[in-house]
């Protein structure tokens, strides 16, 4: 028997990184006896190690809880956990579309942040009922009154009655549950209509294959049914449906209003697209649910094994990650300097960093990553148009009529005292000022139109350091704009090193060429001969540095009978040598390719 729809509440929690989203979810599960106390591990929803460490959610997950209200009724709560970062805006919007309400968690001392705001707008776009909650009330710096005002002034939500909680200690979390039951509307949609199920996530399970996480908007789905993806037209047979308790628990049927998973012997998550609508093959819905988008990677970089022998391991690792992450793309690529590797595409910066980190941690790989690039559009004099995501593929400048680069709208929220230095940073990064509005006396939102290629280097780090960590930031892809771009190359001992090439704005090429050359001089160890480092645009040298030759490399000291130290030193040297890449005659450490990413 289907659960009474009147008693179902589908909701998500939206919050800025570190404001306590996962902790609150943990307390809710505890209070509803969803998870036995002894199985409680902090932040149960964030199963991935990196998620736990960074305190962010990378993949969306869901959990079903049962809550007994003081009115005696037993409610079914479906909590959908959403990824909390700007790179995953689309995924967040699909998770939100699967809900009727959202719990907005705001840190009692930090207040509303740029990302909170971005997610609130997304929630409002999806017509969600928003329940503000003020968290970390137990901390000494808590200023609930100020935060209430902020929520009211900035977001425009009444917050006088917002539960003031401590997710950590459990204080007032009960009230949140009550608000959810009272304020979030039950799902609409009839179980008798043709099936429409919204995919809000997909994961790969070693035993069951690709699982689609769905919200049934209308109709019902059960094992044995033949279903159809409305985006791709592909059909599958359902082998199992179930719910998250929070582990996967098969049930007979999912009906309108419910949240669960569908397993249909789909081999890879790439075949199940987030945002897609699943319907019944024999009785298809008239139209798909709105909002589906084919997600395209925006940021690319080359990933190479530090030790060329690990190429196959790297491929396997990428294959495995791809199973669970449809938005990651990669294809083999060869670099003169780095050998065999892969060109990988990511949704954004964080996505790129997470993938790199997972490759290194979960698969124990040593990587060399090249400078990230965006997709450039090139119009040639011949009329031919092409797009490139790797600077190496840029045609000779004589053939290029013009180039276009992607620009984004960046929203930066900051205490007003940092406005000056942040605007300066945005100008340096070729930003075009759009507007600035005061959220309250001491906080502003500044909007800039900025080239994506300026953001993908160190913009975020710079923003943090120039605002002592207070500014938060969020961006949205806008359009392509014509731009005067050139390829900046680097030559080591006269030989071009392709892995160091980047596309930059002409006005910035000189400064960048100089600073990268200086940096390279620092990181390239001295060789037995002098190594000139040159920065070049086209064939023209614009900067030059020299790594002096090493004349002696010998351990003069004698450690008495302790020869193990000498051996260790040599082993270290040998290890370092293994991590060197031969660029022409010059040995370049893997780190050199990455150190050029962080300049200034």
């Amino acid at each position, binding site marked *: 028997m289907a659960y009474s729809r009147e008693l179902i509440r589908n909701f998500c929690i939206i919050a800025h990184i570190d404001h306590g989203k996962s902790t609150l979810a943990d307390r809710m599960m505890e209070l509803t006896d969803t998870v036995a106390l002894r199985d409680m591990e902090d932040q149960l929803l964030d199963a991935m190690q990196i998620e736990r460490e960074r305190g962010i959610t990378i993949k969306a997950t869901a959990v079903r809880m049962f809550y007994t209200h003081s009115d005696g009724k037993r409610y079914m709560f479906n909590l959908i956990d959403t990824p909390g970062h700007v790179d995953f805006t689309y995924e967040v919007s699909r998770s939100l579309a699967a809900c009727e309400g959202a719990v907005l968690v705001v840190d009692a001392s930090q207040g509303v942040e740029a990302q909170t705001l971005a997610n609130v707008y997304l929630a409002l776009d999806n017509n969600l009922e928003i329940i503000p909650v003020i968290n970390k009330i137990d901390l000494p710096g808590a200023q609930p009154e100020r935060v209430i005002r902020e929520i009211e002034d900035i977001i425009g939500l009444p917050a006088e009655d917002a539960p003031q909680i401590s997710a950590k200690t459990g204080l007032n979390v009960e009230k949140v549950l009550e608000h959810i039951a009272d304020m979030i509307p039950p799902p609409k949609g009839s179980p008798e209509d043709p099936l429409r199920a919204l995919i809000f996530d997909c994961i790969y399970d070693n035993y069951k294959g690709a699982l689609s996480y769905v919200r049934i908007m209308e109709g019902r789905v059960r094992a044995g049914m033949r279903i159809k993806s409305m985006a791709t037209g592909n059909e599958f047979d359902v082998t199992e449906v179930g719910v998250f308790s929070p582990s996967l628990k098969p049930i007979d049927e999912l009906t309108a209003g419910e949240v669960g998973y569908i397993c249909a012997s789909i081999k890879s998550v790439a075949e199940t697209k987030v945002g897609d609508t699943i319907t019944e093959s024999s009785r298809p819905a008239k139209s798909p649910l709105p909002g589906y988008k084919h997600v395209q990677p925006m940021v690319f970089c080359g990933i190479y094994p530090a030790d060329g022998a690990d190429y196959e391991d790297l491929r396997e690792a990428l294959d495995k990650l791809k199973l669970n992450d449809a938005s990651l793309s990669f294809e083999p690529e060869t670099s003169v300097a780095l050998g065999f590797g892969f060109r990988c595409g990511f949704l954004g910066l964080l996505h790129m960093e997470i993938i790199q980190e997972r490759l290194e941690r979960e698969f124990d790989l040593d990587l060399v990553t090249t400078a990230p690039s965006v997709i450039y559009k090139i119009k040639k004099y011949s009329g031919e148009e092409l797009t490139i995501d790797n600077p190496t593929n840029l045609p000779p400048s004589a053939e290029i009529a013009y180039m276009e680069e992607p620009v984004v709208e960046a929203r930066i929220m900051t205490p007003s005292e940092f406005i000056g230095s942040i605007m300066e940073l945005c100008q340096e990064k070729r930003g075009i000022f759009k507007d600035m509005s005061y959220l309250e006396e001491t906080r502003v939102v500044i909007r800039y139109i900025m080239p994506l290629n300026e953001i993908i280097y160190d913009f975020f780090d710079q923003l943090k350091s120039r605002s002592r960590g207070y500014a938060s930031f969020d961006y949205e892809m806008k359009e392509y704009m014509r731009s005067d771009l050139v390829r900046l190359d680097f030559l080591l001992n006269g030989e071009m090193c392709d892995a160091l090439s980047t596309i930059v704005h002409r006005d910035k090429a000189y400064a960048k060429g100089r600073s990268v050359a200086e940096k390279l001089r620092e990181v390239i160890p001295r060789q037995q001969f002098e190594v000139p480092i040159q920065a070049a645009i086209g064939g023209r040298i614009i900067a030059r540095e020299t790594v002096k030759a090493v*004349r002696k490399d010998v351990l003069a*000291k*004698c450690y008495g009978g302790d*020869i193990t130290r000498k*051996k260790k030193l*040599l082993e270290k040297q040998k290890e370092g040598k293994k991590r060197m890449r031969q660029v022409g005659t010059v040995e370049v450490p893997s780190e050199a390719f990455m150190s050029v990413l962080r300049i200034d």
Partner: protein
Amino acid sequence: MPGLYVHIPFCLRKCRYCDFVSFAPPYETGEYTEALKREIELAARACHLRFDTVFIGGGTPSVLPHGAVSLLLHHINKNFSISSPTEITIECNPGTVDAEKMSEYINSGVNRVSFGLQSSDDALLKRAGRIHDFSDFDRAFDLAQNAGFVNISADIMAGLPGQTQESYLATLEELKKYGLKHISAYSLILEPGTALLDDVMAGREILPDEAEVWAMQDAGKEMLENMGFLRYEISNYSIPGYECRHNVNYWKNKEYLGLGISAHSALRDPSWTRRENARSMKRYLELINAGTLPVVKSTVIGQEEEMFECVMLGLRMVSGIDLSEFEQRFCQSLVCIYKSALDKLYKKGWIQEKDGNLMLTEAGLDMQNAALLEFM
């Protein structure tokens, strides 16, 4: 024949660059030398080695009170067999010796004195945290000579904070008149855990840059050779016939027994084995008092690694590696085993073969580390 090393881990003050195991006052030397005697007995019971060199190093062995060194040597003689001709060295800090100690040393069989001088420039000595000045060395040298020592060595250092090439060469110039038989010319290495490293990291101290140190070494070598010294190892020079036999034994990768805190040993037992003694005084004394050898680590070295050790150490010596000795030791020819490494090094002009020995050229000695990587 195996060598015997005895570590005395006490110094009046720790030099700023030093990372050897040594303690500054207050310390209790009596308890330690008693423990050493126990270790001598334990070690003698465990292995029956004959030694022809003994090296009492530190730390500063000359800080031991009168009589302690002769008691130790007496105990060594009683428990081990010592063959002649014997080389018995003691390391002395010029600021810690007197006539009585010198005659005690010579009367108990010591026949080689190694003074830690480092520089003749008093300002540099002070800056490096040394307790003595150059006049102390002058006096100590006289005391040693008056006591009857002939084989006297001095350590000097290139790369001390504040040092210039002039100052380095001035030290050698000063040493001309003493008729030393041996000079060890090391260069300062900034080691983790030293006061000097802290100073350098904090910007309180600046070391001469590498190129300056290289220049000091090159100029120093030339000057030493003009003074009649022959370079026989990367950092060691001697009047012919006065090479330090104890150290040559290390570089030939032969057996040695190390006694005392933090001392290392290499023994054929029956596999090639390297051992380390406890590094903390507490642990060392505990083990000795429990009646066990204070060995905390013992590593059996595989043959491949033993071969590499022979190369690594042998190529420190100007005379290099005796190829037939190597072949005898391993029943394989070095030239076959390391063919590809040797090919590369020949091409670079870093290595040569002469009179049955394989040795680095002068250019090769300067790049010994890089050369060794080819053998790994």
